[in-house]
């Protein structure tokens, strides 16, 4: 009797392992299929309900964390303030630059979003538990005009693109997902490159394959390049000039040796609440 039980247990285990490996082999690197879309559609109302119900508790915990962080940041901020003061005294037009940045960042009002795109606002209702996948679920889907590969922006800049969409919800692949790559350029001098993440980092990304002839400085703004092939058949998934982030590290040696610089995304990708999906564009 006991032996029979052990045999049955082992058989079930072996079966489940085989199924898991088979699924992994079939679906790895493929777009989400019918099963995933079906399950997402069924669970969408539950996720939305849970998200709404748990928001007060979530906000309270996040408030504690932010307060804790703010204490540590206080000292750093004091040092930074002293630096900024000396820079202002030296005559650098920081205020003007700041205004310029703000104008660029107010995406909807400033007209940064190119014509032909219709922004549709969505709320983030779920988030992947793993650092290895930066994916969030939003409460709008194909019934609101959302389609796969639509760009997604937040109040501060680029957030990602639509990975899968069902009637009432969609999955967004954030720009910090290991599979994400965004063609980008430096706003000032047009140096081209590809922005990709490092697994685990939400506030440090890499701009790779930059033109070593063009100098990039700390504080330079990185925007989407939105390229299109000459025959018009192929194009970037993102429209041009959507702010992505600001260069944080750009040592000359690193630029020349590995042709890469580090940047910090403008969007707070770890704490997203509302996003705009740019629907209907001609990519």
């Amino acid at each position, binding site marked *: 009797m006991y032996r029979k039980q052990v045999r049955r*247990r082992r058989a*079930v*285990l072996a079966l*489940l*392992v085989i*199924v*898991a*490996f*088979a*699924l*992994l*082999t*079939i*679906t*790895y*690197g*493929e777009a989400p299929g019918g*099963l*995933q879309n079906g*399950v*997402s559609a069924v*669970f969408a109302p*539950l*996720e939305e309900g*849970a*998200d709404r119900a*748990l928001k007060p*508790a*979530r906000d309270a*915990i*996040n408030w*504690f*964390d932010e307060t*804790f962080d703010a204490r540590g940041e206080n000292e750093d901020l004091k040092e930074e303030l002293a630096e900024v003061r000396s820079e202002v005294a030296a005559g650098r037009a920081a205020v003007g630059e700041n205004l310029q940045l703000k104008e660029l960042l107010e995406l909807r009002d400033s007209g940064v979003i190119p014509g032909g795109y219709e922004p549709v606002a969505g709320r*983030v*209702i*779920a*988030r*992947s*538990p*793993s*650092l*290895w*996948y930066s*994916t969030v*679920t939003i409460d709008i889907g194909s019934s609101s005009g959302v389609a796969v590969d639509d760009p997604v922006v937040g109040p501060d800049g680029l957030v990602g693109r639509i*990975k*899968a969409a069902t009637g009432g919800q969609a*999955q967004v692949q954030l720009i910090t997902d*290991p*599979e994400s790559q965004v063609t980008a350029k430096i706003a000032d001098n047009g140096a081209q490159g590809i922005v*990709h993440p*490092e*697994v*685990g*980092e939400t506030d*440090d990304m*890499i701009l790779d394959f930059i033109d070593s002839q063009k100098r990039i400085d700390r504080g330079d703004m990185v925007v989407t390049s939105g390229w299109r092939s000459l025959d018009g058949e192929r194009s970037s998934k993102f429209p041009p000039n959507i702010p992505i982030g600001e260069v944080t590290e750009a040592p000359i040696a690193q630029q020349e040796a590995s042709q890469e610089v580090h940047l910090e995304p403008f969007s707070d990708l*770890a*704490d997203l609440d509302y996003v705009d999906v740019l629907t209907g564009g001609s990519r």
Partner: protein
Amino acid sequence: MIITPKIALRIGLFLLAGILFQVSFFSKIELLGTSPDILAVIVVCLGLLGGSLAGAVGGFSVGLLIDCLMAEPLGATALILLGVGYCAGLYRERFDVTSALIPPLLCMGMTFAALLAFSALQLMLGIDVGVSIVVARDIIIKSIYAFFLGVPIYLLMRRILRPALIDHREARRRVRRRGRGRVRELTA
């Protein structure tokens, strides 16, 4: 654990609630720069209470559902959580849970192992970008959270599955009463 349709339903609902809590609550909060992960904790608790088969099936189901919900490659999370559930169940079948510290310690250890295995699996599958040291920090902090979350989740699951637990005091009493009844029948 005696799994009746009612108990299976209870387990299913508990796992479902756990998944919803994870994606809508725990994944969206940050404490010390890391979000707690309760999925492995739930599966460990299920394995500890229900044995290796219940743990493996529960872990596989939770993982597959998460893979579906987050549009991730199917099978990756399922494979890891299946192993977690099976190992926790094996522990239950071979050793006794003699101390109240064993469930949280197992939750911590198995979460650590699960996150490490998941990272190894991702690296084996091929990642084109670099991996930050933040991943290692995330694994350690999540494992510590798992220790603290293990206590309430284990107690809650034990309470919910109480009627099915053969080693529970009430169940034991019931078995004893039945046994006495049978003895009386035989002696009469």
